């Protein structure tokens, strides 16, 4: 069996020797270097564009919106984002012009000789500005999208509650900070356009290019090159860069490369949505939740892009993994004159998780229950109903993960020790480092939300090569998370082959089908399942072939041998080759369908939001310096139920990596804005965790198998991002007595909270 084994990373050798080719490693003959000229004002009209008459423009290719052969938008959910601004600019990184030159340096120099003048309008820069509505920049109310999730009788239930707990929580922008900046190369053909580059979703890029150039499916070819991290940041923006490079290539009739430097990448590409989340919870004196009212506002930025789906996921996860029969969740995404926010691992869930877990800490304290008990009595278990009315019928690892994290970390005795040491009620102003410990408990729905997967019907295939190997055909991309390796493991076991006998086709839209985007913790659980079904279909064809050939009725594939009635007939390889000799090819495709009984109603926003959830619990330990108020996260113990771990080392890698991104979210990472522009768009002052900031991370994988996942697997990609920030905030509260309802908990923010507490 390959599944469950730590099979070595399929593309590991090339990544370790420097042989792997990322987009910036590729240079083509006659290639030009493109650059994007952007708005420098957050809102206004373009008055004039002046090209310095003393500069030699004969060497430079310039493109603007008038050069677009098709539609001037980046196709996504709503086609509202222009590829290049025409007259109006809505944020200060909005692309206006494109230029290409023989070298990157020359393009940089040419860019300095272009002058754009604007007639500025007052910008909307914050959620508060957008809601106030003094300036309307979208529709009639600045709201891109709103949702209501309602269940039970909330108003009546509040009357019955013994206690009402309120809280307001704030979460910031966060930058994905993949270490490989974004980049693309476009190669024009006579009537085709080929684009290759760093991306998560080749078919998103494919669709965007078709719309921009009015080309057919076959005329656009998109190829993913080795991709140096994505985390959501390479979900949708690569479509923009690809179309920019392609437009220049189309005009120049030469290949064009666009590689963002780090400053441009941080400034212009999408971030995690910042948000304000308010909770009002009705609780019995025994600590049971009886009524919950939650209001979510996310800042979508200047265009709708993915905000509606980020908001949807946020709303569905907003109550957390808890039982409450009377719920009203309102959610809005607002427009501001800032670069559009988008996908980042967790996709709305980390924001609401911070809020509901901080609220849970508050509720526990108000009713006098410890962090574990308040969660234990309210947690969702098998058979329980979620906020959208979904009955949880399988693979619910809630209790297991909470118990495992609490026991392994020795949480209860640590929290007692910390409380004794710190004397919560006493003065926090001693010079000794203060230790604290905090808990969080969370869940994450895998796959697209609601009816997304049912509509998408993701496709994948498996074919047999002339050598008798299996080859996987899928548009799912390897972005470091291990797609290639786990897909090969799944197919190897389905066909009884060794992993070395399974190949995987490059993600090239002319060669692989659309498996849907590589997002939403769906690659293993959803596409992995489709890959497994395709392999099963190949097996079935071969089985029937053997049955006919040997005149046997009951043929089975055991290991890699076909057998019937105890007789060994032939090897997989021999039969595969015989089949190919006769039929020329052997290939099968499969499509995803939801498990039976999964129903979602888009009208009422109720039903089975996801076919299954993954579950997690985290215990965070911190040390707070009482002089500088720096928070050091020293240890994370986490238990995560991800169903069957196809490759435990890769799964642990997902959990550890996601956890550290969440540590950054909780205490370090802060974007600083000035008039709609990020001013710390460099690694010198946008601080992500180094090895010295990283806590020791102890991971416990809980495997509550999901009957409809490949070999029982669920999603793992995003869950690890959800829970660390509130656990850290709870630990800081434990250490200092300061309840900080806003992340990141920087020294400045913690000091302010401590001073506020002292004044009170």
């Amino acid at each position: 069996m390959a599944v469950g084994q730590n099979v070595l990373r399929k593309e590991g050798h090339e990544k370790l020797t420097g042989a792997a080719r990322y987009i910036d490693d590729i240079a083509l003959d006659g290639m030009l270097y493109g650059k994007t000229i952007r708005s420098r004002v957050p809102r206004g009209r373009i008055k004039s564009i002046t090209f310095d008459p003393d500069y030699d423009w004969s060497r430079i290719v310039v493109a603007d919106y008038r050069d677009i052969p098709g539609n001037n938008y980046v196709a996504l959910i709503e086609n509202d984002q222009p590829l290049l601004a025409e007259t109006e600019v809505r944020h200060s990184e909005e692309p206006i012009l494109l230029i290409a030159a023989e070298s990157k340096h020359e393009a940089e120099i040419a860019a300095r000789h272009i002058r754009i003048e604007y007639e500025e309008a007052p910008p909307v820069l914050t959620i508060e500005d957008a809601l106030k509505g003094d300036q309307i920049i979208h529709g009639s109310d600045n709201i891109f999208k709103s949702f209501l999730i309602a269940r039970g009788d909330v108003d009546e239930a509040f009357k019955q509650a013994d206690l009402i707990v309120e809280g307001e929580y704030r979460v910031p922008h966060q930058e994905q900070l993949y270490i490989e900046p974004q980049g693309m190369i476009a190669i024009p053909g006579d009537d085709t356009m080929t684009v290759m580059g760093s991306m998560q979703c080749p078919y998103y890029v494919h669709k965007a290019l078709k719309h921009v150039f009015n080309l057919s499916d076959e005329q656009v070819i998109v190829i993913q090159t080795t991709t140096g991290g994505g985390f959501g940041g390479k979900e949708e923006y690569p479509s923009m860069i690809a179309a920019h490079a392609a437009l220049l290539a189309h005009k120049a009739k030469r290949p064009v490369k666009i590689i963002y430097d780090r400053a441009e990448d941080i400034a212009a590409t999408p971030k995690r949505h910042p948000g304000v989340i308010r909770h009002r919870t009705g609780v019995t004196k025994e600590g049971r939740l009886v009524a919950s009212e939650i209001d979510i506002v996310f800042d979508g930025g200047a265009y709708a892009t993915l905000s509606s789906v980020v908001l949807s996921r946020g709303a569905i996860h907003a109550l957390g993994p808890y039982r409450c029969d009377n719920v009203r969740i309102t959610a809005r995404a607002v427009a501001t004159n800032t670069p559009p926010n988008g996908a980042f691992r967790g996709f709305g869930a980390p924001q609401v998780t911070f809020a509901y877990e901080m609220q849970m800490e508050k509720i526990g304290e108000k009713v006098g229950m410890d962090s574990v008990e308040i969660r234990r009595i309210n947690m969702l278990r098998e058979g329980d109903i979620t906020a959208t009315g979904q009955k949880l019928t399988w693979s619910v690892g809630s209790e297991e993960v909470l118990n495992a994290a609490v026991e392994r970390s020795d949480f209860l005795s640590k929290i007692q020790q910390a409380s004794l040491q710190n004397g919560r009620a006493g003065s926090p102003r001693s010079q000794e480092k203060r230790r604290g410990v905090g808990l969080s408990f969370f869940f994450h729905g895998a796959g697209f939300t609601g009816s997304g997967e049912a509509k998408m019907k993701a496709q994948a295939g498996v074919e047999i090569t002339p050598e008798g190997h299996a080859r996987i055909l899928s548009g799912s991309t390897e972005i470091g998370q291990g797609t290639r390796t786990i897909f090969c493991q799944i197919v190897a076991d389905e066909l009884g082959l060794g992993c070395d006998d399974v190949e995987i086709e490059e993600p090239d839209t002319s060669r692989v089908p659309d498996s849907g985007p590589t997002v939403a913790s769906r690659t293993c659980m959803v596409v992995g399942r489709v890959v497994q079904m395709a392999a099963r279909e190949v097996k079935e064809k071969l089985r029937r072939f053997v049955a006919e050939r040997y005149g046997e009725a009951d043929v089975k594939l055991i290991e890699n041998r076909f057998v019937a009635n105890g007789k060994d007939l032939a090897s997989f390889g021999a039969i595969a080759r015989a089949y190919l000799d006769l039929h020329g090819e052997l290939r099968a495709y499969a499509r995803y369908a939801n498990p039976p009984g999964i129903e979602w109603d888009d009208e009422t926003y109720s039903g089975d939001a996801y076919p299954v959830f993954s579950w997690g619990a985290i215990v965070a330990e911190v040390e707070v310096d009482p002089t500088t108020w720096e928070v050091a996260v020293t240890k994370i113990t986490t238990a995560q139920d991800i169903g069957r771990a196809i490759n435990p080392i890769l799964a642990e890698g997902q959990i550890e990596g996601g956890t550290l991104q969440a540590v950054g979210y909780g205490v370090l990472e802060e974007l600083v804005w000035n008039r709609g522009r990020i001013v710390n768009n460099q690694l010198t002052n946008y601080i992500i965790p180094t090895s010295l900031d990283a806590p020791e991370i102890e991971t416990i994988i809980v495997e509550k198998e999901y009957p409809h996942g490949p070999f029982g697997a669920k999603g793992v990609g995003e869950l690890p991002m959800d829970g660390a920030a509130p656990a850290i905030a709870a630990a800081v509260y434990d250490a200092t007595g300061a309840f900080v309802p806003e992340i990141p908990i920087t020294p400045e923010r913690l000091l302010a909270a401590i001073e506020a507490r002292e004044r009170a």
Partner: protein
Amino acid sequence: MKFSFQINGAEREIDAPPMKRLLDALREDLRLTGTKEGCGEGECGACSVIVDGEVINSCLVPVCQTQGAKIITVEGLARDGRLDPLQQAFLECGGAQCGICTPGMLIAARVLLDTNPHPARDEIKEAIAGNLCRCTGYVKIIDAIEQTAKTV
């Protein structure tokens, strides 16, 4: 101007402007693209190479400063098709995910083990603190370096 140095054991000469970044000389003039650019300002360490036994950020060093130096890049770690024990350990422990920080990480780790063959875990963390990784949480990178030190 002409500059010569020893790269991965071979004598090489290039003709480049003296202030050209060593990173660009490696990637463009010598087509050694294993060395990566992540930030261009010496923060991420993806461009780390070994110059005369020390780890440097090749995005911050002009090529004129490396005249006559001995330079090792990630392409120079494997010998005769056999992986360096560090590369093997990264493969086995899961130390590489997206792979973009990996060349720099391996370079920093190689210099650590060359100068301190049996480092403590804290010393390993210190040695790779100039190399950012966004995928792994560093756990399996540190494991891989530790495993190499134990087995070699």
